[in-house]
């Protein structure tokens, strides 16, 4: 063995030790807690992984918040962003990171599993958690003292949707006596269908369910399913879909000249911009029940302007508005607490009473469990490529077209 070959590894070993020591010294094992008065809000959304597109969309609402809230007189605040990577383990670690970087409030996370993981950290550290989007009821049933949710729970979503349907029939002046449901056969579609079917009897819905038809959302042809639905002669068609299958179902309905009294969607797909831009006029008149914003509220208008300034091609949607409102609740609590101290902020969160907000409902307040009981769903109708709120009536911008017009009678 030559001298060189003997020495080389030793030199590298020393280099390695020196390098490792330098890295160890550089690693910030402890972050200093910020004690400044400027509110720091840790924002957690899944900006990578399977839910990346939704998380990124939520961040658009967050990015629009400073401009809108400063104009409303709220103090300057700082956003600390974290990516949950669509993984509860990372959500937990990122919540720790944001808190150690000085976040006084955490907000997020879109997905219930990730939200619950982050909530545990907030509860341990005594940091208020402004839950912007997450529907699992358990989140506010665990006895957490620092968790405040401004989003409808799963059961609230279903019951509100059924109430909105009844109101729609009343306002429209025509009540369907029969209904057929088309739903995706995946987990989302099956579970949502089950939740509705379970509640139909207790809600005393005016229509009789003739048939529920499951279909594969990845199918290339849905003609048989539409034919089957048409054959029931049901007056109302209720749909639980994704966007691609929603487009295919509509095209098939047009082809088979099936014009029910109305099509009501209880989820995504039928109100999305890609649905409306693809189908143009025939996308009109479809009604969707969704967690939405009240376009008549001044703050909604201000948020819409701020969003369009940054993202001209984006229409204000659920992701933007609820993510924004998570920030609004935090800065409002900070304003009333007059401090960034966690205890005072939590107390201020409990006493939240915001009337001037964005989402549908009378405002934001929290019950003893930390849930906003006032948050409401909306019924929106597609009209000329826009989602117009038709119900509840105090949030409506127009009257619903009901029954829907024939496919050929749309200008």
């Amino acid at each position, binding site marked *: 063995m030559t001298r060189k070959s003997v020495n080389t590894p030793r030199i590298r070993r020393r280099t390695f030790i020196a390098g490792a020591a330098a890295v160890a010294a550089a690693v*910030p*094992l*402890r972050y200093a807690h910020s004690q400044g008065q400027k509110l720091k809000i840790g924002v957690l959304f899944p*900006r990578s*992984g399977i839910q990346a597109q939704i998380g*990124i969309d939520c961040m658009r609402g967050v990015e629009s918040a400073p401009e809108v809230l400063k104009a409303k007189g709220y103090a300057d605040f700082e956003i600390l962003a974290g990516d949950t990577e669509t993984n509860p383990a990372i959500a937990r670690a990122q919540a*720790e990171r944001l808190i150690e970087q000085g976040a006084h409030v955490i907000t997020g996370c879109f997905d219930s599993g990730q939200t619950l993981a982050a909530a545990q950290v907030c509860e341990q550290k005594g940091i208020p958690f402004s839950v912007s989007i997450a529907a699992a009821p358990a989140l506010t049933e665990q*006895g957490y003292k620092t968790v405040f949710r401004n989003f409808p729970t799963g059961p609230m979503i279903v019951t509100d949707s059924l109430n909105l349907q009844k109101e729609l029939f009343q306002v429209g002046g025509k009540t369907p006596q029969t209904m057929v449901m088309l739903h995706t056969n995946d987990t*989302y579609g099956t579970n949502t269908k089950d939740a509705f079917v379970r509640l139909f009897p207790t809600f005393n819905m005016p229509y009789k369910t003739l048939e529920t038809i499951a279909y594969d959302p990845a199918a290339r042809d849905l003609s048989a399913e539409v034919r089957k639905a048409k054959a029931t002669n049901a007056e109302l068609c209720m749909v639980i879909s994704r966007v691609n299958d929603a487009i295919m179902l509509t095209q098939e309905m047009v082809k088979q000249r099936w014009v029910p009294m109305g099509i009501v969607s209880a989820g995504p797909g039928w109100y999305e911009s890609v649905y409306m831009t693809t189908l143009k006029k025939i996308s009109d008149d479809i009604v969707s029940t969704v967690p939405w914003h009240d376009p008549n509220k001044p703050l909604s208008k201000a948020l819409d302007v701020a969003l369009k300034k940054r993202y001209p091609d984006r229409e204000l949607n659920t992701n933007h508005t609820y993510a924004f409102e998570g920030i609004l609740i935090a800065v409002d609590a900070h304003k009333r607490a007059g401090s960034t101290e966690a205890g005072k902020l939590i107390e201020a969160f409990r006493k939240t009473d915001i009337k001037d907000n964005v989402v549908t409902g009378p405002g934001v307040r929290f019950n003893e469990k930390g849930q906003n009981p006032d948050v409401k769903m909306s019924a929106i109708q597609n009209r000329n490529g826009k989602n117009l709120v038709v119900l509840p009536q105090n949030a409506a911008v127009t009257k619903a077209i009901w029954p829907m017009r024939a496919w050929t009678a749309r200008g």
Partner: protein
Amino acid sequence: MNDLTPFGRAALLAFAALLLAVPWIASGYVLSVSIICLYLAYMGQAWNLMLGFAGLLSIGHALFVGLGAYTSGYLFTKLGVPPAVGVVAAVAVAMAMGSIIGYLGFRFAIGGVYFALLTIAFSEFVRILLDHAKFLGGTEGMFLPVSQESRRGVDLVNLRGSTEMYYYVILALAAGAFLMCRALLNGRVGYYWRAIRDNPEAAEAVGVDIFRFRMYAVLLSSGMAGVAGVFYAFYYNNLFPEQVLGIERSIEVTLAPIVGGVGTLFGPIFGAFILTPMGELLTEAVEGFKQSGLIAKNVKTDGVKLMFWGLAVALIVLLKPKGLWPWVCERLRLVKPPGQRG
């Protein structure tokens, strides 16, 4: 220890001391990341036992984690069975599933990538089944009750306590898995596994019962993953089929052994402690650059960590196909050359 050079021994002791000291010197964030590292190191060891030792590729290991998690979670929430007891049922269920997959795979000579596909198929099948299992929460999730008081102190029977307690639990599991794998690899079964891995026909020709020893590998690996599931359930306290059994969870556990070195004992641990902290440091660095203005704030850097992971795996597969650990061992002379070992 006998195979290590004096420097290797010192490095191992320093690493062990550092691991023991983490809760005392590190922040909550570093502690959380360390728990992720140790979890991936433990799971990497379980996965490595199948591929690295016995030559059986699994891309559905999240299945066993999920079964362990749901079994212990259900027993705890519905029947009040503590996880210290529930872990037995969790391991039994995970091993039962492992035995089904193993039996089907080995009895019908399904090997290589086809065996991997079998593991994916079962994993997806169980995930969809859990999606529809209302008594386990379905897609709406299963939630394990946790009180504020139980977040303090140490209750190993109910697996309730502080984050520090969870850290030491997963550290003990990772250390135990390492020692068990070391004992197995250096024993008779380890030689049989390696013989089967390198040339199953030759191993069978000299009398090795390849069906039996392959089944041992699958059963042990699935049982270990079942234990990881119990830890997962009681650390995160909520279970969603998509989050626990998703294909990305299965892929995640393969990364540390691939980076560290498939078939090596320390590779999964080394890989986990390289990949996870590097990813976190990268995220930190990018955020820091944004704050300091070196990167414009409007530049989208979402998913930079996942891109780094992808690049790292691609480079390692291309440049160091045996993983980083054998190379590091050689460069730093951590292990004695084969001729000088006792």
